[in-house]
């Protein structure tokens, strides 16, 4: 288990409990279980208490937790017949973006998302979930394919942002993002998006201009990272806590602002503490939404998406 810095007291208690049990195993004559169980209770109370009141910055840390289920995990857990499709047909295959045909509860769909990787090797291969223009162009290609064959599009958003690299800029990072957003808006099939971890700026919008957008309880979605915002507006990157609060980037804030449609509850202690339960909750939501929207006329779906975004921002935060 990877503990976050604010989980230290929790780590201590859980550590003590497991030490105690190890001691009990080594010395069968000792009865440690009662004491260990008390520590377990204390730990679980503490966990519920910490996670019941996460600050915006702590949510950023949870959203980026290395053990949090990623795009690939969701695809494996929730979809069948997943058939990855590769390449943008122009330049390269971008491994930061996963996508392909799959079935969600039997219904054929196109699933697309950013994948961050789970260890050093895969993180480098996936470029930490930061797509290059090829990734956005691959997504456009897959969305177009889905549109032509009447398949709903499901996206799983988890990216620190689009990759800020030399080649990415030379090959038109901004144009690729703009076209992907345009494609989302043009789809005549239902499009559903879930922010499962980090929704980083334009790189996320290009995948999340959908009919329905959900966020996991401890995920974030922001115009800029708190660190980036702090270094620009506070002229001090260490002011990320203040920036995270000010940006209102939590699922709860975005729900309050009318930017997202649903907050998906995570298991106590975050999605990484019970990955299966977290993914199942997302699966149930997607299945329900798909039933609502499947079969709606292309024009109505486009209109629905357009109205949703045009109306956005007509309200500020509730006082």
């Amino acid at each position, binding site marked *: 288990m990877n503990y976050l810095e604010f989980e230290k007291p929790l780590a201590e208690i859980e550590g003590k409990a497991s030490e105690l049990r190890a001691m009990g195993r080594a010395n069968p004559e000792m009865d440690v279980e009662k004491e260990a169980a008390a520590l377990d209770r204390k730990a679980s109370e503490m966990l519920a208490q910490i996670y019941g009141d996460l600050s915006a910055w702590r949510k950023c840390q949870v959203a980026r937790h290395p053990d949090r289920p990623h795009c690939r995990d969701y695809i494996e857990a929730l979809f069948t017949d997943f058939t990855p499709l590769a390449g943008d047909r122009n330049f390269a295959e971008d491994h930061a973006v996963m996508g392909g045909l799959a079935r969600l509860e039997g219904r054929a769909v196109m699933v697309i998302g950013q994948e961050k990787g789970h260890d050093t090797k895969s993180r480098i291969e996936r470029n930490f979930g930061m797509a290059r223009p090829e990734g956005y162009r691959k997504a456009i290609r897959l969305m177009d394919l889905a549109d032509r064959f009447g398949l709903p599009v499901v996206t799983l958003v988890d990216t620190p942002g*689009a*990759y*800020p*690299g*030399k080649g*990415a*800029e*030379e*090959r*038109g*990072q*901004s*144009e690729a*993002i*703009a*076209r992907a*957003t*345009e494609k*989302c*808006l*043009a789809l005549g099939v239902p499009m559903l998006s879930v922010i499962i971890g980090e929704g980083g*700026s*334009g790189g996320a*919008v*290009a995948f999340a*201009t959908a009919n329905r957008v959900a966020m996991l309880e401890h995920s974030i*979605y*922001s*115009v*800029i990272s708190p660190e980036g*915002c702090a270094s*620009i*507006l*506070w*002229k001090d990157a260490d002011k990320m806590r*203040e*920036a995270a609060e*000010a*940006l*209102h*980037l939590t699922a709860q*804030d*975005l729900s309050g*602002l009318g*930017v997202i449609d649903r907050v998906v509850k995570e298991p106590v202690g975050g999605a990484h503490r019970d990955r299966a339960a977290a993914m199942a909750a997302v699966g149930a939501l997607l299945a329900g939404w798909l039933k609502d929207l499947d079969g709606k006329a292309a024009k109505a779906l486009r209109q629905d998406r*357009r109205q949703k*975004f*045009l109306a*956005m*921002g*007509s*309200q*500020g*935060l509730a006082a």
Partner: protein
Amino acid sequence: MNWISNYVRPKINSLFSRREVPENLWTKCDNCGQMLFHRELAANLNVCPNCGFHMPISPADRFAALFDGGVYTEVAVPDPVQDPLKFRDSKRYTDRLREARAKTGEKDAMLVAEGEMGRTPIVAAAQDFSFMAGSMGMYVGNAIIAAAERAVKLKRPLVLFSAAGGARMQEGILSLMQMPRTTIAVQMLKEAGLPYVVVLTNPTTGGVTASYAMLGDVQIAEPGALICFAGPRVIEQTIREKLPEGFQRAEYLLDHGMLDRVTSRLELKDELVTILRMLLRLSPQVRGDLPPPEAPDAGTEAAPGGKSAAKPAAKKAAGQKK
């Protein structure tokens, strides 16, 4: 909310009407260091007569030079909720807004207008870099939507001049949501079969480049303009290598297939008219300096006021000299 713009009273805009500039002010060219008399610089649309360096120009000054006789009608933009997040860093967002308004005399970072350019009716929108770095928040989003809706209503093309440091962080996620919102505006134009021409000016970066500023039917940039998604500093920090000379400048983008043209501000008007008239299948343009339209089309009342129409036209003549 009524998105269709209300009319504000038409005004005659001369190059000097908005801000009074002292008579004997000299400006130093940021590029060649030449001292330039402000009148000479303004008459040359803020392009250095010595080296051709393009300095910023306000939307009002740009429109004065763009529209025939300097006459145009502002298109009203629906007011968004102000300071939706009650944002405060070292300063309150509301204070930053107040300061920017006092400095520019404008409401926010985009001005929308309708009028005739080379006798071709258009709607134009120009972003104001001097207003909080031209950043895109809800007002700018509303402005672009209002511009597109007006263009569709009048069946006119939209010419958009971009200039922005990116999204307005002080509006948080709502600034990010202007990417899809402005993309919808572009779609409205495309569905109506109307040309959408983007002129990228220095600098155009971030979420602005990654939405409406890169979706034009024709993409033109002013010389030397920085155009990018991620800024050069961020990239250097990420890849830890020096970037090539001219990286992310207009000419570099042209070389990499990201733009149609790089055109001097002094030749832009002619070029825009030429392109638009072909896209609209109109007869070739009448060249030269045109006075304000004689018979304004329905809805537009050209009402030359105290400053006669001849004056800005004369000013413009100097500015248009090649």
